[in-house]
């Protein structure tokens, strides 16, 4: 409840600013918005089996719409440091900014995987749930996943194969849907250069505390890379009323440009 009070107070703070704008200079044009959060909107809907219905079009952040042009700096909530093993910490810290760009699925247009579809994705999600199943559509590069939510076990070890989203199954813990993923392709990142091993185990949690809000949290277990499991803070998404739009990654010039920059920096001895 506290978050809603904070959001509503913040929205009231913004109103005089939004209505007081007169002439705008070039750099303060249309599209540069201060976020105004949605109200809670009432209790969440429920499915015929009594579980919370997570269905909706969900935008990252509290406004129920795109926030790409927000005038407010992006802030990452305070989280525990990633408990890397020493060799992994050294590798992680060795990445240059250009390395991180070149390795980003959003630059090279490769699959973001699990949990990258939430942690490395500023775009819109559509979720459709029915008893026993969740369908997750991801606007960014037109991705999708379908997950059984009946608590069935993972595939037998001999039937597993590396998959970008992993072998996924889900069950309900009260009003929280818990998605359990293993056998995730090592080419994906958790986020921002955080690489993983073939032993990665991702536990995602989705809950809908009210009509207008969806919350997401994930836990990473990776005994080859981390010293102990790590759990994120809860990420907020909010209910939008727009359709997803087509977004195929086809004209990718950044890789070539960044590779050229990397070669120049290497020659200059810069990190």
């Amino acid at each position: 409840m506290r978050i809603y009070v904070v959001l509503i107070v913040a929205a009231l703070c913004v109103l005089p600013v939004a209505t007081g704008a007169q002439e705008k200079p070039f750099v303060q044009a249309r599209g540069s918005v201060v976020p105004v959060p949605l109200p809670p909107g009432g209790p969440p809907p429920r499915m015929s089996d009594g579980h919370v219905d997570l269905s909706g079009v969900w935008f990252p952040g509290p406004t129920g719409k795109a926030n790409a042009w927000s005038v407010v700096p992006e802030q990452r909530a305070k989280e525990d440091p990633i408990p890397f093993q020493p060799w992994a910490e050294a590798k992680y810290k060795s990445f240059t900014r250009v390395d991180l760009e070149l390795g980003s699925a959003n630059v090279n247009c490769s699959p973001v995987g699990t949990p990258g579809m939430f942690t490395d994705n500023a775009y819109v999600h559509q979720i459709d749930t029915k008893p026993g199943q969740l369908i997750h559509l991801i606007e960014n590069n037109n991705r999708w996943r379908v997950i059984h939510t009946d608590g069935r076990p993972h595939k037998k070890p001999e039937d597993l194969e590396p998959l970008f989203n992993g072998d996924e199954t889900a069950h309900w813990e009260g009003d929280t849907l818990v998605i359990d993923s293993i056998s995730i392709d090592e080419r994906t990142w958790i986020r921002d250069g955080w690489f993983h091993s073939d032993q990665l185990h991702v536990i995602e949690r989705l809950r809908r505390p009210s009509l207008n809000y969806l919350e997401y949290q994930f836990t990473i277990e990776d005994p080859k890379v981390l010293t102990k499991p790590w759990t994120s803070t809860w990420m907020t998404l909010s209910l939008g009323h727009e359709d997803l739009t087509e977004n195929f990654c086809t004209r990718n010039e950044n890789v070539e440009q960044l590779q050229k920059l990397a070669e120049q920096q290497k020659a200059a001895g810069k990190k």
Partner: protein
Amino acid sequence: MRATASLACGLLVLLTWSPAFAHHAFAVEFDATKCSDITGTLTKVSYENPHAYVFVNGKNPAGETVELTFQLSSTSNLKRGGATYAALNGSVNKEVTVRGCLSRNGTDNRYAASFIKLADGTIQRVGQDVEGIFGTKLWR
């Protein structure tokens, strides 16, 4: 005063949630210290992903008229922000002004654009705030 209040309130909002971070950081590839307003004739719009592009016949830093390439955001961000396919194409063969930052790697005439003033005088935001004008420099 109003701007300060706005920023404080906005920060209050954002500190309560952990966003999925931006698509990726333009400031790595483009130089925030080499930005300028560039006026010329819009010749072509490529409305694609991961980034759209606009091409403008304008003057390069040496004062020569050449075709300049401006990288924009994704079509998802553009259309939701108002810079639709139709809005941009309406200025083809007309004069526009673009706020652009040069590529760091020396590729000739390649910029990231943050804003465009279209032929009808409307201004659209079209890309990341590489310069950090709003304090929104998108780097972790």
